[in-house]
């Protein structure tokens, strides 16, 4: 991972969750750059800019005002510019059906927000490491499904 950064974006309306997320990556020291947005509308405004640096992994909270994580997911997956970007749903618990439906709609990763900071760090490091394998080893991204 020495010669390249993993660019990460999180859209989450909860300030504490955004802070834990950023701090977790700071402590992990994994060559990542993290940007956060307060909701889906801000996120899409940013992603649709022409000169945007497309992140390697996008984390989406499900319940956000104005535009939900699912709406973001569907809109982003319709745009082929983002086909190599992994999308992680980052949410508090949901039913099995809901989880499966996010995968069907094009999510690659589903993470249940852990209550414990240590667990969060472990999960996020896991996500970045596995995504890195897809990024560098030419694995088939269509088959990239991960639930933590």
């Amino acid at each position, binding site marked *: 991972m020495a010669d390249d950064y993993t660019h990460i974006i999180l859209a989450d309306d909860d300030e504490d969750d955004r802070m834990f997320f950023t701090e977790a990556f700071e402590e992990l020291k994994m060559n990542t750059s993290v940007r956060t947005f307060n909701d889906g509308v801000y996120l899409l405004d940013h992603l649709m800019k022409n000169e945007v640096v497309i992140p390697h992994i996008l984390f989406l909270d499900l319940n956000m005002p104005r535009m939900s994580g699912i709406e973001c997911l569907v809109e982003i997956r319709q745009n082929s510019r983002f086909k190599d970007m992994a999308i992680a749903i980052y949410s508090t618990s949901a039913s099995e059906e809901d989880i499966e439906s996010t995968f069907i709609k094009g999510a690659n990763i589903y993470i249940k927000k852990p209550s414990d900071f240590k667990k969060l760090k472990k999960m996020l490091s896991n996500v970045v490491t596995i995504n*890195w394998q897809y990024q560098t080893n030419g694995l*088939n991204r269509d088959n990239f499904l991960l639930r*933590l």
Partner: protein
Amino acid sequence: MKLFIKFDFQAVCNSVLEERLQALGIAYKIVGFGEVEFLQKLSEEKKHEFVEALQPYHIEIVEDQKSILVQKMKDVIIDMVYNADTEVHVKSSVYLSEKLGHSYGYLANLFSEVTYTSIENFIILQKIEYTKHLIIHENLSLTEIAFKLNYSSVAHLSTQFKKTTGITPSAFQRIIEKRRQQQN
């Protein structure tokens, strides 16, 4: 007249590096002794210039050799996973070290250093990716796949799949099928 000089090798080497990097206008950070981190992606051209600039000082870049060996390891592993039915059945550690002519300990350390994952995890990941491929494109049953990939039992494969991806093989198959239906 004679003067006696004392060197601080690290300081000398670092200042040579700094001087050359600055002359080339490369943003950098010297991480430790003999390790430079580039703060932006380096074009092949720039990299070449950098290598040449260091030649008069007999400073060489070793990182690339490490990457090449790691790439070789990956190739051997992938070949091993995808041709599991034809390969001689030796332990992967023995096979790797024989093929590449280094001790397994050395290879394992180097692999983790460069890829942030262990050889064991990489093998498992490759096997699970191949399993996914066989489920979707070859329509093989899990029993057939377990046999093909030398798993001791279907249960073992199924558990490893779930442990690696967080979902069961059947859920995986269902999701991919529904995705396809949705796209049509």
